[in-house]
C-alpha cells in the first residue's frame, strides 16, 4: 500500500433552462453579467462533455455561438483561447470574459447590436455527484481503473476538479503528488492539453504515462 486511496466519483448534470436568451453581443454581455456561476460553468466546462468524442474549434458554448451565429471570429478566438487551467474560480473566468467582450465592442462598435443567426439560450446545470465502486490504492490499481472508467468520471476529476479545489491542478495529479509522492507523473498529467484531445484520447494519454511510470 503506497498511501491514501483514491476514491473515484462520477458526475451527471441536468440542464436547467433559464428562459433567457441573447440575440446580440450586447445582450450576451448583459446575460453574462447577471447569470449564475452555474450557467458559466455549464456553458464553458460541462456542455462540451457531450461532444467529447470530437475535437471542436471551441469548447466554450459562448465562443461557439459568437463564431457560428454572430460571425465575430476574432472575438470567438479570444474567448476560445481562454484556458481553464489559468483560472481557479468562476468569478475570475467571468470577469475575464466580460473584459474581452467589452474591449471588443469598444474596438468594433458595429458588433454591439448585430443580430445573430440563431439566439443564444442561457442554461445552467444541477450536478449530481456520486461515488463509484472504484478505489485505487496504488499505481497498478489506478491504471486498471482508468482503463474502464466512465468518461464522466474522467471529466469530473480532470477538468471540473480545478474549480472545485480552487487550485491549479486536477484530482489525479493532486493524489499522485500528495499521496503517492509521484511528482513527475503528477506534473506530466497536468501538462496534458485538454483542449487538443478528446476525452478518450486523454484517457489513453494518462494510461500511457502511468504505464511508463510503473515500468520505470
Amino acid at each position: 500500500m503506497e498511501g491514501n486511496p483514491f476514491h473515484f466519483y462520477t458526475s451527471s448534470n441536468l440542464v436547467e433552462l433559464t428562459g433567457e436568451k441573447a440575440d446580440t453581443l450586447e445582450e450576451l454581455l448583459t446575460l453574462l453579467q447577471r447569470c449564475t456561476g452555474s450557467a458559466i460553468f455549464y456553458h464553458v466546462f460541462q456542455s462540451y462533455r457531450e461532444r467529447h468524442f470530437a475535437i471542436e474549434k471551441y469548447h466554450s458554448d459562448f465562443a461557439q455561438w459568437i463564431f457560428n451565429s454572430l460571425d465575430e471570429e476574432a472575438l470567438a478566438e479570444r474567448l476560445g483561447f481562454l484556458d481553464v487551467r489559468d483560472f481557479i474560480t468562476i468569478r475570475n473566468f467571468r470577469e475575464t470574459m466580460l473584459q474581452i467582450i467589452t474591449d471588443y465592442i469598444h474596438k468594433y462598435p458595429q458588433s454591439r447590436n448585430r443580430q445573430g443567426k440563431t439566439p443564444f439560450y442561457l442554461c445552467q446545470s444541477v450536478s449530481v455527484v456520486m461515488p463509484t465502486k472504484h478505489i485505487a490504492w496504488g499505481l497498478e490499481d489506478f491504471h486498471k481503473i482508468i482503463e474502464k472508467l466512465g468518461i464522466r468520471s474522467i471529466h469530473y476529476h480532470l477538468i471540473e476538479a480545478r474549480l472545485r479545489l480552487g487550485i491549479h491542478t486536477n484530482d489525479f495529479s493532486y493524489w499522485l503528488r500528495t499521496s503517492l509522492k509521484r511528482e513527475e507523473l503528477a506534473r506530466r498529467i497536468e501538462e496534458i492539453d485538454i483542449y487538443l484531445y478528446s476525452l478518450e484520447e486523454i484517457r489513453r494519454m494518462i494510461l500511457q504515462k502511468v504505464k511508463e511510470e510503473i515500468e520505470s
Partner: protein
Amino acid sequence: MSLISLMDYEQIIGKETTEELYLLAERSKGRRIKMVNSTAAGGGVAEILSRLIPLLNDLGIDTHWEVIKGGEDFFGVTKKIHNALHGEKISFTQRMKEIFLDVNRENLRDNDLDQDIIVIHDPQPVIYIEAKGRTPAKWVWRCHIDISNPNVEVWEFLKGYVEKYNVALFSSPRFSKKLPIPQFLFFPSIDPLSDKNRELEPEFIDQVLERLYIPRDKPIITQISRFDHLKDPIGVIRAYRAVKRHTDCRLVLAGGEASDDPEGEAVLDEVRSEAKGDSDIHIVLLPPTSSLEINAIQRASTIILQKSLKEGFGLTVSEALWKKKPVIGSAVGGIPAQIIPNLTGALVHSIDGTAYQIRYLLSHPDIAKKLGEYGHEYVKEKFLITRNLRRYLLLFHVLSHPGERIIHL
C-alpha cells in the same frame, strides 16, 4: 408492455454508463412514480413511455402509467388546444374550457395519488395539478410540444395551472417560457432496439429495397417524412435535380400520409406531378406499421435529408445519425440541436444550400463517413432512450434537493 431490461442496452451504451445508471437508480429504489398521458398507443409520447416505464421498473422504481379517459368532445378540445399551442388561431370558448376541466376532474375522482412523483405529459391532463393538496407527491409537467409561439389566450389559461407544478420539462431551450418554477431540458429520444432503429441483416435490407423497386446501382438520397408542405418535398426534388446535373443519383421520398391533414392527398399529387418522368425518383407511401421498411431504406441510403420548412424536434435526424448516415437538415425546430455544423452533419437554409451539400458529400465520401460516425456518437450521448432514463433518474434526485446546484449522493 414488453419486458425490457437496462442490461439489453449495455452492449450499446457500454458497461460504465450502464453501471452509472444503476448507481443513480440505487438511491431511488422503492419510489412510487405515476406517469399520465393521453394515449396508450400511437404517437411519440406513448412510444417513449412504453419503453421508459419498463426500464424504470427494471431498476426498482415503482412506475405506473395512467391514460386519461375522455370522449370525442374532450379529445376534440385537446386537439384544438394542441394546435393553438403551435400558434394556430382558435376560438377558445367557455364550453371548451368546461369540457376540458370536467373530464380532468372526473379522471381525478377516486384516483390513487399516493405517489412520490407524478409526471403529467402534455396539456391534456394538465388540470390534474388541482389535486396537489391531496398528496405529498412532487408534480412534474413534461411538455413534448413546441410552445415557442403559442396562441396567447390558450397559453395564459394553461399557464395558471403549469405554474402550480414543482418543475416543468421542455424538449428544447426554444420552447421554454418565463415561468416561476424551475424548467429542465429533456430532449426526446430514440430507442436503438426498436424496429425503426435496430441493426438489420444486409439480406433483409436488399429484400425491402427490391420489394419497393429501388435499385441500388447509384447513390441514394433519402428524405423520410409524411407528405406535408412543411417537410418541403418539392424543395427536396428541386435540390436533387440540381445535383443530378453533376452527379448521378436516386431520390427516395418515403413516408406516410398525414391522416389528420386534409391537404395530405393534394401534397402527394403535387409531389407526383413534380417527379413525373424521372424513374430515379421513388415516391414510397408507407403504412404507419412500416418501421422495419423505414429502417431498411435509411440504412441503404447514401445521404439523408430533412429539409423541413418548420419542424417540431425532427427525431428522424437522430434516427439517421444513429445509422451513421451523413444528414443534411434545415436549421429549423429541433434540427440544430441534433446537427452541429460540420461535425455531426450539415445545416442548410435553402434548396441551393441543400443541393451544394449533397454534391459536396457525394464527392467527399470520407468526410460524409466521418460526419455519420460523429453523428452516431452524438446521438448515443444525447438522444437515446437511456439518456432519457438518466435525465429522469437525475430529476428524481433534484426533486428531493430543491434549490441545490450540486447534489452529493
